[in-house]
């Protein structure tokens, strides 16, 4: 058919290049922003980001609306900004809404892991929560905690789904964490009555 002229070639190369450039520009590896909490069952960071197709199924399926898609609008209340590789990936902002590990929801699996189409969230049985979920670990700031400042509180202990293992009760209802058992669900962070809260869940580095 038609000859491939130089003009034609340049025109087509420009169109393809522009589309490719747009894709790669948005792709740039995630900025140094770490420390976001991923939903339960998430693979380790690099593999999670490669497998996740940013479809939002986990967020739709989450019964407690704890899973948000990481966009600028969602992150700005917590001074979090998605790096380009993070855009649209699921995160949990425990202070806003913590993961209740589908404790009182019927079904055998954690719902977000059940609907994930790519396996970025590995399918987890609810009975496997204590052994396989590691969203992060709770960290306490004793300067802020009421119980460590001679005012008994104990709200977090009542919120913890694994009292006695992940969180033990100390003198004057002081929370004592055991990071071997903490799954990082953030229910303690969510329930803390201080602003800013004394407990914060930090993602494993």
């Amino acid at each position, binding site marked *: 058919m038609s000859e491939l002229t130089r003009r034609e070639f340049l025109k087509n190369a420009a169109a393809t290049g522009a589309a490719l450039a747009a894709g790669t520009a948005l792709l740039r590896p995630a900025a140094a922003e770490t420390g976001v909490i991923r939903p339960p069952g998430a693979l380790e960071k690099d593999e999670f980001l490669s497998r996740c197709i940013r479809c939002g199924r986990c967020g739709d399926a989450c019964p407690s609306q704890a899973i948000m898609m990481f966009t600028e609008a969602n992150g700005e209340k917590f001074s979090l900004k998605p790096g380009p590789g993070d855009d649209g990936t699921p995160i949990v902002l425990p202070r806003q809404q913590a993961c209740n590990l589908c*404790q009182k929801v019927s079904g055998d699996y954690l719902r977000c892991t059940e609907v994930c189409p790519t396996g970025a969230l590995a399918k987890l049985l609810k009975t496997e929560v204590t052994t396989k979920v590691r969203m992060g670990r709770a960290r306490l700031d004793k300067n802020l905690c009421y119980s460590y400042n001679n005012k008994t509180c104990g709200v977090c202990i009542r919120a913890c789904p694994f009292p006695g293992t992940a969180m033990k009760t100390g003198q004057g209802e002081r929370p004592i964490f055991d990071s071997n058992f903490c799954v990082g669900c953030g229910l303690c962070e969510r329930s803390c009555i201080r602003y800013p809260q004394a407990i914060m869940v930090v993602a494993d580095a």
Partner: protein
Amino acid sequence: MIWPWRRAVQALVLASVVLFPFIARYGHYLWARQTEKMLSLWEGSAAGLILRGTDALMRAGLPMEESGVAGRRPRKALLARADNFVGSVPWSARVFGVSLTDLLAASESALAAGSLLSVLAVGAIIPLIATVLLGRVYCGWICPVGILLPLIRRLRALVAFLELPVRDVRFSKKNKYALLGAAAAITAAGGLPMLHHIYPPAILSRECHSFATVLFDRAESGLFGFPWGFATGGMLFLGLVALVEVALAPGFWCASLCPGGALYSALSRWKLLRVKRAKSACIDCVICDQKCPMQLQPMTDKTGAECDACGVCVDACPTRALSIRFSRTDAALLILFALLLAPPARAHHIIGIPHYAYDKSFPQAPVLRLRDKIGPYEVTLTAYPGNPKPGEKSEIHVYVADPATNAPYEKPVLLEAHRLRIFGFQEKIADAGEGLVDMGLHKFQVFYPVEANYEVVLVLPGLDGTSTLRFPMVIGEPGSPWRDVALFGGGFLALVVAVRAVKIKRARAAARERIA
């Protein structure tokens, strides 16, 4: 007549793209037993209207009765229904328990991770088989962009009317394969999927989710304005594609650049569904070639793998020489296959009680927790309420501590508040003052007089070097000055277009009169 069917299917998909996020949110409120509360709280607002509409849609055919109590919303049945619609149509969704994933999504995920998991294969199997047998039907019948772009292209009539140059640049159809190949190489090398950033149906469904999230999140904290700020970078890309389609090259995206189209075309080499031409009836009128949205030539049987079975040529043919069909043996095989694909029965039963403290603070506590670093210290600022109404008291708590030693900052912390005017002008509304110190926290109370963007400035005079930190604070729904500029610009442009249109109309009327 093929087009009514095709448009109906596309419209259904488009409606799902828009509705699924709302259904998900509706499901969340059902889980939390908050539907009734939200419906009454949001009476009359856009969010309330959408929630009510979703409720009506989901409740269609169900009696208002639960556990024998008449008038109570049938929560369990509604939850079971909502569970049928999960995810982003058509990128990746679970519809009636069947997992469906776009082949582009599946391949880029598998490629980036370097292995294929069985979950992913299960979701991709139906689209894969459909594509191999039927060809690029996804593009012609499912993709919601396929119905949006033709609508947007109608603006070309306006461009022509305004006597602006109407361009029709054609690009090579091979571009998309180059794009797909290059993107695949980058994905495999970089380990991050990239094509969803430039694949319009994926962008569209993501933006719809983002819209629902921002709309309802704002409504939960009592803000009912239009949710500006839901749009992400992908929206810009969609806008750009639309602009090029109108101004420069109609149909260029689907025909020559879409990476999804490339993948689907590549997979449909041995497809069974093809455009057939009855040679005896064909009168070589070239209408079909002109109408083909994929820029193919049905008149000379040059359709092949690029054809998306849209049926435009079939409808356009004046002598009905064209048709889309299978051969008879193919059809028999297909029917056999369809029987194999009959969906398995699936049982639901969902009972659930939301967790501790859900109701107490739902709508969710207006949480704001901003963090920054200054010198060796980490500063955490919370405000309650996070986005107060004008005149409402807002408690600001500031916590300054050294993360290394966990020692709180002992010296005074001062807080100022400024109102931000357009183009960087500021106006001080609260002078620097020391707060109340309580257990390591510096507590301040700020009243913001009017709805606007503010900035809270912390001054730590005891520090060497920089001693101020700035945090943004939005009161009410002031919007951004850039939005106002954009609205003004858009309005101005519309005015120019209207004036020009009227002028042209008058000139033409005058010309007609002169002739008459």
